[in-house]
């Protein structure tokens, strides 16, 4: 099926070329890092993990989130999601690759990476994280590819795949839980030392991940004939809304615990992040931006009228992604290291080179997504699955509006009809 990725429009090639250029530019910074060591980064003795590890943490969420489409489909037979499943799985593949990439660029002696396998150390969570990440990558490759191949041949999905699918659903929870354990079990890092961290990780993954996926799917719709079934889209947006509410609720629990108990260690990180401490206010503006954007995103998501407004939806999702990224992709890590073990503040900010290396990995992820989504949408087009009708509906929507029906493109009444005809089967 890979050959499907080779034939494409000029625009497709231009995009691939653009990504390759980004990868190339980032690669020069990475070579510099390999020659000179991690001194090109902004990390320090006190803040010993930085942008790389925080991006890894954020992207694990994206990898885990695919399960929000897969799970309803396989565990609840919610077939409306059927044609979206493959995209969730392919997104997870790209996310896993990016995660592994961020780990590789972060370690000081990448050539010795295999020491983790030659000297397996089960008491280290990093060992388990390696297992679950690679396992999840493998599971998604296997399931995604096999299903798509079966689809293309017009065959039912093979029976032997079932156990792998169910495993992958449970596995998705494990990757984010284990990643949270990476942080959560460390004495002396109060911002991370909380039993709810794994739950927080999952909640934020299940809102930010599907949000990113939806944004990518919307872009995919622009460039291909694929169209998301409306009910599947709506279900996903509802999941995002719930997950974001839970995410912020969990955050509020942390605040309560810290400040009602009045234990200094628990308060310091939060005070540093939101008010600044010892004269350091680096993150205060960003953290309040996070709170503000989270509030806006929740308002837009829980109000049915605003949630169902497909014009507004992309903006809502972008706001949500930025909010969760500040929280988890930046604040969590820096707040965990600050205050330092000496109760002092060592500010951290990624350097330009660090950002370039990160750009390389993000571009690599985008490349993988592009290629995999290209293949998936081509197959769907061949099969006539979830294709866009002239009025903007998907063929899965039970929407009988064709051009002949005279539906103007941007005022399709089919949507309401479809909703009546095919109520959510949950």
């Amino acid at each position, binding site marked *: 099926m890979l050959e499907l990725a080779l034939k494409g429009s000029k625009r497709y090639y231009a995009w691939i070329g653009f990504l390759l250029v980004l990868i190339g530019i980032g690669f020069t910074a990475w070579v510099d890092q390999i020659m*000179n*060591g991690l001194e090109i980064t902004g990390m320090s003795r006190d803040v010993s993990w930085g942008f790389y590890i925080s991006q890894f943490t954020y992207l694990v969420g994206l990898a885990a989130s695919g399960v929000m489409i897969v799970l309803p489909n396989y565990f609840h037979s919610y077939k409306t999601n059927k044609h979206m499943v493959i995209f969730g799985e392919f997104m997870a593949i790209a996310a896993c690759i990016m995660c592994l990439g961020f780990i590789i660029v972060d370690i000081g002696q990448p050539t010795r990476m295999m020491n*983790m396998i030659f000297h397996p150390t089960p008491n280290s969570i990093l060992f388990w994280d390696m297992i679950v990440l690679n396992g999840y990558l493998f599971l998604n490759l296997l399931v995604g590819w096999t299903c798509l191949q079966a689809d293309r041949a017009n065959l039912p999905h093979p029976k032997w795949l079932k156990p792998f699918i169910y495993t992958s659903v449970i596995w998705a929870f494990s990757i984010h839980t284990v990643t949270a354990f990476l942080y959560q079990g460390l*004495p002396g890092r109060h911002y991370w030392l909380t039993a709810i961290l794994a739950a927080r990780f999952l909640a934020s993954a299940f809102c930010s991940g599907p949000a990113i996926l939806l944004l990518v799917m919307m872009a995919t719709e622009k460039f291909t004939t694929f169209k998301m079934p409306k009910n599947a889209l709506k279900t996903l947006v509802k999941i995002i809304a719930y997950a974001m509410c839970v995410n912020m609720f969990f955050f509020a629990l942390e605040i309560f615990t810290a400040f009602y108990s009045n234990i200094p260690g628990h308060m310091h990180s939060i005070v540093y992040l939101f008010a600044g401490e010892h004269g350091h206010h680096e993150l205060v503006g960003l953290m309040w931006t996070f709170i503000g954007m989270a509030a806006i995103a929740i308002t837009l998501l829980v109000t049915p009228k605003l949630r169902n407004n497909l014009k507004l939806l992309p903006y809502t999702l972008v706001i949500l992604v930025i909010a969760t990224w500040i929280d988890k992709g930046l604040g969590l890590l820096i707040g965990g290291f600050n205050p330092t073990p000496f109760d002092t503040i060592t500010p951290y900010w990624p350097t330009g080179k660090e950002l370039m290396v990160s750009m390389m990995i993000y571009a690599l992820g985008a490349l993988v997504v592009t290629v995999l989504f290209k293949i998936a949408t081509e197959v769907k087009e061949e099969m006539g699955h979830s294709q866009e009708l002239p009025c903007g509906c998907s063929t899965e929507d039970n929407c009988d509006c064709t051009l002949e029906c005279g539906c103007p493109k941007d005022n399709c009444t089919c949507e309401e009809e479809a909703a009546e005809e095919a109520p959510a089967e949950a």
Partner: protein
Amino acid sequence: MKNNRRAFIKLAAVAAAGLAVAPKAMASSGGHSPVKANPKGLHAKQWAMVIDSTKLHSEEEIAKLADSCHKIHNVPELTGKKEVKWLWSDIYPHTFPEQENPHLAEEVHHRHYPLLCNHCEHPSCVRVCPTKATFKRPDGIVAMDYHRCIGCRYCMAACPYGSRSFNWGEPRKNLDLANLNPKFPTRMRGVVEKCNFCVERLAVGDMPACVEASEGAIVFGDLYDPESPVRKVLRERFTLRRKPAAGTEPCVYYVI
């Protein structure tokens, strides 16, 4: 077809026999020849240190100890937030952040305290290391294998005492190459390092360098020997440990 299979089985049998013999052949080749221990070497169940902060508390005095430690261990000289250090000094609120007291005696508050790896009995750095590059020796010393370390810096995140340093760049660039201690290795970049309680000196019967340079202000000995000098001081004087709540059981005690 049948022939092929037979040939394969034969081959497999030969290979298995080879595998069975190989370890013995390797052993006799001297790969694991026994190492004779230095008869003068010092032993303990758990090495520990008591620092008398009434005798040793000025920045300059501690800098002298740090100097001798850093010299014999070829610790690169760096300043700023990417520095590498095994032994250094800091003020009370930074040393005992959870045992602060606003009405503490001025003098105690303004002393400087020597800081180093505590060689904890339950070291979190060992627990998290994915390659066993950080490991606990039978004598309680938390040691590092610089050749095993992959530089993931998980141990730095895990140590509640900020005792570890990472070689962000090439450490030899910041060493006085003419005055290296040839008896101790230098490090390469990309690995973590920290105080090792001078295992290399204990092995030949010497006390740790800082203990020797402290002129009696630091006592060193076996925590599990009631007769050891360490236990004697612990019996007689009031001592503090850094962050007892972290549960790592630090083996460096401070007489206040």
